[in-house]
């Protein structure tokens, strides 16, 4: 099965400014894929290139195996790029109707079902211009879901959502992948959310691919055992160079399976251990170290 998105030497320049260098990237199907990077890294440019909204300066892009990015393939894709694109004079229901018509759909029940799915049934007859940012985001997502897409491209999907909305969005994304086999490519600045929802990620910086891999692999092996104990000096003496101070405790850089032995050593050395928990490496820390603090 061809990749959901395949970029080969893909680049975009605006005059002398290079928005995307020469990106080689293959995003497999059937998972949630995060595209991460600081502002101006080229994430939105990559997504716009994939959707044919901008033309590449070099290289090529294939979407669902198709090299010609036209409406025939794009109708198999749902997209929400940057701020929600909505007509201010249309209500939520009318917005669905307008986009359904653009997509060639004649299924009012589907429009209602999508409104219900994004939690806007109660506000269906309100104009989009009166919506909060979160509601606009939901409506745009609903419009993207109308055609039952195989691939969903979401640029900052949690922008403007409250914590409950972010949780709902996360659940929706996982449901789409796990129950409906939709592939999702998303970009986000909320790395904690990305870590929770994405299966694989790519780090892009200054238009170049910096790192790529499974989230579980990127964050594994870089965890540590957080220990809160007294006296600290004795604990540090036991741990030696493996320890670093963090908050009111210390973090031991050891493999997870060495944790029980270490705790036994600390107790044997007369250290009182109040708290010991395994800290998984966060994607944010990986991101910061990968980007060299440039994020």
């Amino acid at each position, binding site marked *: 099965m061809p990749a959901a998105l395949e970029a080969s030497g893909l680049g975009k320049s*605006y005059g002398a400014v290079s928005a995307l260098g020469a990106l080689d990237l293959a995003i497999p199907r059937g998972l949630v894929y995060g595209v991460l990077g600081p502002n101006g890294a080229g994430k939105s440019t990559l997504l*716009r290139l994939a959707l044919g909204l*901008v033309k590449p300066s070099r290289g090529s892009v294939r979407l669902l195996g198709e090299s010609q990015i036209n409406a025939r393939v794009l109708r198999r894709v749902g*997209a929400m790029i940057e701020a929600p694109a*909505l007509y201010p004079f249309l209500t939520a229901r*009318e917005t669905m109707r307008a986009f359904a018509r*653009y997509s*060639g759909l004649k299924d009012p029940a589907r429009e209602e079902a999508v409104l219900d799915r994004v939690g806007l049934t109660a506000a269906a007859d309100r104009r989009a211009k009166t919506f909060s940012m979160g509601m606009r985001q939901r409506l745009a997502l609903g419009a993207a879901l109308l055609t039952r897409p195989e691939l969903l491209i979401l640029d900052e999907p949690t922008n403007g959502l409250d914590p409950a909305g972010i949780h709902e969005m996360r659940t929706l994304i996982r449901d789409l992948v796990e129950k409906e086999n939709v592939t999702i490519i998303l970009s986000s600045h909320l790395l904690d959310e990305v870590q929770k929802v994405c299966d694989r990620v790519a780090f892009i910086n200054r238009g170049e691919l910096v790192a790529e891999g499974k989230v579980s692999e990127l964050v594994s092996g870089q965890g540590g055992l957080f220990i809160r104990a007294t006296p600290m000096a004795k604990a540090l003496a036991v741990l030696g160079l493996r320890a670093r101070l963090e908050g009111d405790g210390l973090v031991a850089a050891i493999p997870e399976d060495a944790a029980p032995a270490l705790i036994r050593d600390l107790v044997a050395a007369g250290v009182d251990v109040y708290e010991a928990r395994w800290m998984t490496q966060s994607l944010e820390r990986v991101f910061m170290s990968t980007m060299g603090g440039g994020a």
Partner: protein
Amino acid sequence: MIIDALRAELYKLSRNRWSTFWAFGFMPLFALGMGVIEQAAYHFYMGDLLPYAAPLHESLGGLATFSASIFQLCGIAGAAIIFGGEYRWETWRAALTRVDRAPIMAAKMLAFAIAISISLLLCGVARLIVGFIDVGLTGYATWPPVDPGAIALAHLMGFSATFLQMMVTAAFVMLVCVVSRAMTAGIVAALLTLVACEIASIRGNMGDELIWVLFPNIAGEALRQAGNIMMGGRDGLLAGFAWQGAAALVMWFILLSAAALALFTRQDLSKE
């Protein structure tokens, strides 16, 4: 795909009621209102001095409602909403993931053509009503001394003249909106250009040189005058250039639309 886009465009127009009213609904009401006021004023101030109510000449005149540049303002605004709206609301990125660029622009042009045709026909009907009101006021009606076929053809020519003029204007608005990515630019540039054309082509109304039909307002007027003559009218210095005028309008429409489409299909929508 063009049908899908057309359905969406017409749906959007029907839901954008206020803008659609000013763009396409106001002029027929204006034609009706002004006509009634005009006829009432004639009747009450001049009495029976002008006892020649001519409903069919009124309706033919109604089909010319959009002919003068200033009266094209409403149609220009309508074209700007249709062609520049996606830039203003930054909605290209949502629409173009559903329909290709050429079909969507063609659908927009078709939507404009449908809306302006209805508006234009309503203007004709409005003036026909004014004509019959005049009949009621004066108690006298005159009819063109020609057969019904000629009357129909004259109306068709009158409609075609203004319709083609408006389509040229819409194509110009489309081009300006694509180049500037701004709705307002489409309105301002089109209106100023039309006024400039009218001023620059005053001499063209003499009908002495064919070259003047390159001005859309002269070309439209040539077609209208030919229609008027067909219905028994006598004035028509430009009437001999009717077919050349129609050809000029079609040429302008094709050139401007093609230029706009060529630019749009190559345009980067990195930020609408």
